[in-house]
């Protein structure tokens, strides 16, 4: 009896295993990402037109570095295994790390041509390009250019400007920006500050550099960074900012009240940060009418904002799509074509990007589509008092220089902020000590880097 039972079990197992056999020729792509954003796009736009491709979508959150450690582990130990990703998405914080490594495939070798790539917004393409060998390794469906959001009502009150063009003239470069900051502080008697803090300015200011943090294996402190330090010192000493850091209570408070005039925010920052925090009790779940009503009822800033390109073109954030070099090397021609088609579909296909931009309002990474949308009259945004955000972002997008981005940026930026900007601007240490401490910390983090 028991023997029969065990036999039955074994047979059941056999049948179970057999049922895997006999599937038809469908190409399976493993796609790894850190949010379900791309998954939604696959379901809505990609899957209907690509029935022969089965997408195996895997999500690991970026919290606590889970995503990167999963990718690192699989790439280091089993990059060509069946479970390893064929395609993975890369966030701004770590995109450089991967495009500079041998783990990501050269997209040109996958069959992309210059004509195809021509409409890609340069800054996103530059960031997706390896600093090591100049190969293009990642492309993005969106561009995340940054602009300067400002309170039109406060600008009129304290600076007497009524149009974005007039305001842009007051923030056209960093010196003018600081003069304006002083005027705002004086006219408002300290009630309104130009920005929340030095950290806010950094996101834009770092794009004023001509060289990245590391050039030819050497640490480079671009001369313009010393100007940045002077700027932050003036900001602190003359009390021209709210002295808060990004993502703190002070920062969000500045969006709701009259305490802050300007925010440096990119495309996503406008929709997902500034807008949901524009008033007391507002949230990301509300639509425009609800936001407006809440602001009118509880106090808020809905509709009072305008935007200008600001002192420098910059980019903040973004998601790139790259391919696993080990899997590409072993893939059949059909699979290579499928990988190329996947990346091309999301990052360059005009039909998709246009439909996606129309549906989501996201700023897409193709100049051809951006121009098409602008030609149709752009996207008047009631939150910006009817201003068209697409045209400003389009202007900013093509100003930003992505070539200065390196895989050292995340660490270097945090060391620069913790060991130089903060202690120097607060007067805790003098400049030489700060720079020496910074260099020590760089040596500690990167023993192989030449630090002079």
């Amino acid at each position: 009896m028991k023997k029969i039972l065990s036999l039955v079990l074994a047979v059941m197992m056999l049948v179970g295993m057999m049922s895997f056999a006999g599937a038809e020729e469908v190409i399976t792509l493993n796609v790894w990402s850190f949010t379900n954003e791309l998954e939604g796009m696959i379901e809505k736009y990609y899957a209907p037109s690509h029935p022969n491709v089965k997408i195996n979508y895997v999500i690991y959150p970026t919290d606590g570095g889970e995503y990167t450690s999963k990718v690192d582990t699989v790439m280091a130990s089993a990059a060509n295994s069946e479970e390893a990703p064929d395609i993975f998405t890369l966030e701004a914080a770590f995109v450089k790390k991967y495009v500079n490594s041998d783990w990501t495939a050269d997209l040109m070798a996958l069959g992309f041509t210059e004509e195809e790539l021509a409409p890609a917004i340069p800054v996103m393409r530059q960031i997706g390009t390896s600093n090591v060998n100049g190969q293009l390794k990642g492309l993005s469906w969106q561009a995340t250019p940054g602009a300067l959001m400002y309170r039109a009502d406060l600008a009129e009150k304290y600076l007497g400007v009524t149009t974005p063009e007039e305001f842009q003239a007051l923030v056209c470069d960093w010196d003018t920006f600081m003069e304006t900051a002083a005027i705002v502080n004086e006219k408002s008697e300290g009630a309104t500050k130009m920005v929340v803090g030095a950290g806010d300015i950094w996101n834009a200011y770092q794009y004023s550099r001509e060289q990245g943090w590391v050039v030819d294996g050497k640490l480079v402190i671009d001369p313009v960074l010393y100007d940045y330090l002077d700027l932050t010192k003036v900001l602190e000493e003359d009390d021209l900012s709210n002295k808060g850091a990004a993502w703190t209570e002070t920062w969000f408070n500045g969006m709701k009240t009259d305490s802050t005039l300007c925010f440096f925010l990119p495309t996503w920052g406008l929709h997902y940060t500034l807008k949901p925090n524009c008033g007391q009790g507002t949230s990301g779940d509300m639509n425009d009418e609800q936001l407006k009503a809440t602001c009118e009822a509880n106090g808020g800033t809905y509709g009072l904002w305008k935007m200008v390109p600001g002192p420098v073109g910059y980019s903040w954030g973004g998601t790139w799509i790259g391919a696993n070099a080990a899997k590409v090397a072993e893939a059949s021609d059909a699979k290579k074509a499928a990988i190329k088609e996947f990346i091309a579909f999301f990052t360059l296909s005009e039909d998709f990007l246009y439909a996606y931009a129309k549906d989501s309002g996201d700023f897409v990474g193709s100049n051809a589509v951006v121009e098409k949308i602008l030609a149709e009259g752009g996207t008047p945004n009631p939150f910006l008092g009817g201003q068209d955000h697409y045209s400003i972002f389009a202007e900013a997008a093509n100003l930003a220089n992505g070539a200065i981005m390196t895989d050292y940026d995340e660490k270097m930026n945090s060391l620069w902020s913790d060991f130089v900007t903060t202690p120097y601007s607060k007067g805790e240490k003098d400049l030489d000590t700060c720079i020496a401490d910074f260099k020590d910390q760089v040596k500690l983090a990167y023993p192989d880097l030449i630090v002079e």
Partner: protein
Amino acid sequence: MQKVSANQQYVPKKADSHERISVKTMILSLVLLVMTYICMALPLINSNKLVTMGDKLNAGLLPKLLEKAMNTEFVLAVVGGGMLLAAILLIFDNPNKDKKYLVASAIMNAAGILLILFAMIRLGAQPLAQGEKFNFANAALIILFPAALLYLNVFQYIKGYGKYGFTFVLPFFLVFAVFQLYPIFFTFRTSITNAAGLGNALNSEITGFGSFARLFNPDDIVFKEFWLSLGNTVIMWGFNFVPQISMALLLASWFTDSRMRLKFQGGFKVLIFMPNIITAATIGMLFMSLFSYPIAPVNTLLQSMGLLHGPFEFFRSTAAARGIVSFIQWWMWYGNTMIVMIAGILGINPSLFEAALVDGCSSRQTFWKITLPLIKPILLYNLVTSLVGGLTMFDIPHMMTQGAPNNTTNTVARFIYMQGFSGGYNYNIASAASVVLFVIIVICSLIMSTIMKDREPKKRRAIK
């Protein structure tokens, strides 16, 4: 149930074995084994799109099969199959204990030998990939399977219920060996290699004690930062531990005092223990927002109470930042320590307290002369666990201050983490620092247990 047939065969007797193994059982087992292999192999063959059935036949099925069989998944599948089979036999097969173990182990032996064969063919046929110095799959094949084989062979000869005991604790030791013991040795190894750079943790060569030299060379920045972080850790641990143990002792003696008879003890204990239940990372984030600058609850409160005239930046002041970390550690752990102390005090023979009461001891005298000396082992336990926990302090400083200001709240664990998993990924320095920390903890624990040990010679006198 067990039919006696002419096909029965005698097996060599073991000391207490009078059972025979049935050929039927043996054949059935072998059939099952073969079927299992086929089951496991089929999906692997079918998943290979490049090799069509025609190709297989043309090239000869067997070489292709063998080629496919030389992959880790297959070998692991075979192990799984073998284990399953052994389990089926152990559970369902015949009622004669010795026989079923014999059959099970025979199958496992066969599977094990096959596996080792596979492993050797795999190692021989497929050399390590370029630049690869180490391969987990190969290591597993070489180490784990012979070990399993050895165990199963030994298993037959263990008498009595002991064998069940060993079998049931085996999973723990296996998991411990793979996820704790092996990583510890791997850390020791990494500390003397050149492992640095993203993804190079496994791809390294032993180069000597360079990382240790950096940790002990006073001119090196690594030396400066490591010992600074160790100093920070000790300071923050000390300022948390002394109040923690005092508070825990005080509360424990109150809760156990028969003369006080505190009401709502359960409620108090829950409230005091509560902070320990919340994840440290959450608490770190909570205090970060409480104490942030310039607009935050604590700043607002202190200003409205008139204690501060302007906002104070807590995380730019070394004393304040360290103080907050120590406070959180104290607040999270004194409840836990208290519970352990209460358990310790309740373990003391109540007649001692009664005798003290009869002799007219005050509460204070009872505490100092009876309670404290008798919970010395518990105190030692607390001291050692708190020291180990304190020296490996990580989450609160990491979530709350990120080492600010100027790395004066950086702890050793955070130093190791930042070295190993950020910037240049200096796995070797991180491992060397871990080894040094390990040695420091061992030495401290030894010193403490020596100091705290009962110095009176033990009298071993039989009481009759």
